[in-house]
């Protein structure tokens, strides 16, 4: 029975999730938001990934993020791709520095402009 801590609010309920023939059962939650969180966490956990990449000819790095959440199990695969990246300035804010990161369909974008 998976146990997890709800992060929706500061209460931090300890949630228990059980798979039954009727579907996913959640206990320990104080509100419906906790149930929705538990179901997503158990069935398809997702995270935003942030990192830095090299900029050609510069000492400073460029901070990047996934445009939206990606599956949690692909975080390390995505990091391997990110580590190989180098961009050439100039780079605009929100510019896509790599499309379809790790086959997720989600783009990696710059979070800072480089002149």
């Amino acid at each position: 029975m998976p146990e997890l801590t709800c992060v929706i609010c500061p209460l931090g309920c300890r949630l228990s999730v059980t798979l039954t023939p009727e579907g996913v059962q959640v206990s320990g939650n104080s509100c419906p938001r906790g149930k929705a969180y538990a179901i997503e966490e158990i069935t398809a956990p997702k995270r935003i990934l942030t990192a830095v990449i090299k900029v050609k000819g510069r000492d400073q790095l460029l901070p990047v993020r996934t445009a939206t959440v990606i599956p949690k199990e692909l975080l390390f695969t995505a990091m391997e791709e990110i580590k190989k990246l180098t961009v050439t300035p100039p780079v605009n804010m929100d510019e896509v520095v790599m499309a379809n990161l790790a086959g997720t369909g989600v783009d990696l974008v710059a979070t800072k402009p480089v002149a």
Partner: protein
Amino acid sequence: MREVPVELLVIGAGPAGLAAALSAAKEGCKDIILVDRLNEPGGILPQCIHNGFGLRFFKQELTGPEYAQRFINFLAAYPQVKIKTGTMVIELTRDRLAYTLSSREGLCCYRAQAVILSMGCRERPRGAVNIPGTRPAGIYTAGTIQRLMNIEGYLPGREAVILGSGDIGLIMARRLTLEGVKVRAVLELLPYSTGLTRNIVQCLDDYDIPLYLKHTVTEIYGEKRLAGIKAAPVDDQLQPIKDKVFALNCDTLVLSVGLIPENELSSTAEVTLDPATNGPVVNSLYQTTVPGIFACGNVVHVHDLVDDVSEEGRIAGRAAAAFIREKITPRTGVSVKPGRNIRSVVPQKVLAGETTLYIRAKFPEKDLFLQVGSDRVKQRVVTPGETIRHTINDDKFAKNVPHIAVSLEKGGENHA
């Protein structure tokens, strides 16, 4: 020495200073200088590449650099704000003379009609926690590691132990792991984490990094480079239990053991500090006890959320603009009086009208109510790691009362 008159001098171009300068400019201030000793504005934000910023202020989840860039872009529309980076204020006087040093302009003296203190806070280093042992390379504060990895592009080591479960330490546990560093443990002296719950879950649990509560580092060893640390559980007096010491090999020790508001300049300006926050005593307008000197952000008290820092900056900026325009003498306001399970309350002096109080509990508790004067609000759970916000929105507080008592009282309804 050059003496330069200026309407408003803002010291520190982090989130507090950026918001303060912007707000003062919007309120009609014509001549604002925003100084920062770093070479780019944004303060700590450029190195905070993770997301989670701006939910309250911008209603979306931004990274640190994105949050900073929004304010930098806003300020670009106000040419009356001049940002001077690479410039350090070395002394501030009570009558608002500020001595600055920069390689471009040398020594300079600004004579300001109003000053906003927005210098932020600093990390407690090894010396502040007195860890015995050798003095090898490989011991860093969490913020230093963050700067090395996210700005300068260095990996600090291969195997790390983190002491302290503050938010920056937790964030760096995840960041180190994603970059291939093995984080062996996070040790926390207290029986609870001082970090936000979502950081415990998304930075430690996600990566199976063990969190040892009621544990500390008892020894650091290694000659040139850190070779490992000894850790032990602590008893109820927070003393290490000697026969339970165990070793953890690591080449990197990350300290995330607290933040202290940086108030050297506040002190030279004779601003009164609150021992509970280590920051200036302020009123609802974020005026300090010295007329014409305002303060906002982490220099006042350490915040959980940058959004609250920006909000204080906005209030301080507007108040400073009004001070310059009207030369109003600051009113002192009614004092807040921290009571049961309250570590600190900011602002410490409440003026009539609406004031948002930032309240920090001393220890974690459940099923309480927060009592602020005659206001009573249910609190299911409080922890020192998560600030309680409470807005008082009634003129009655500022009239006819000697002080406003703030406390967390037992007896809240149980909803668990």
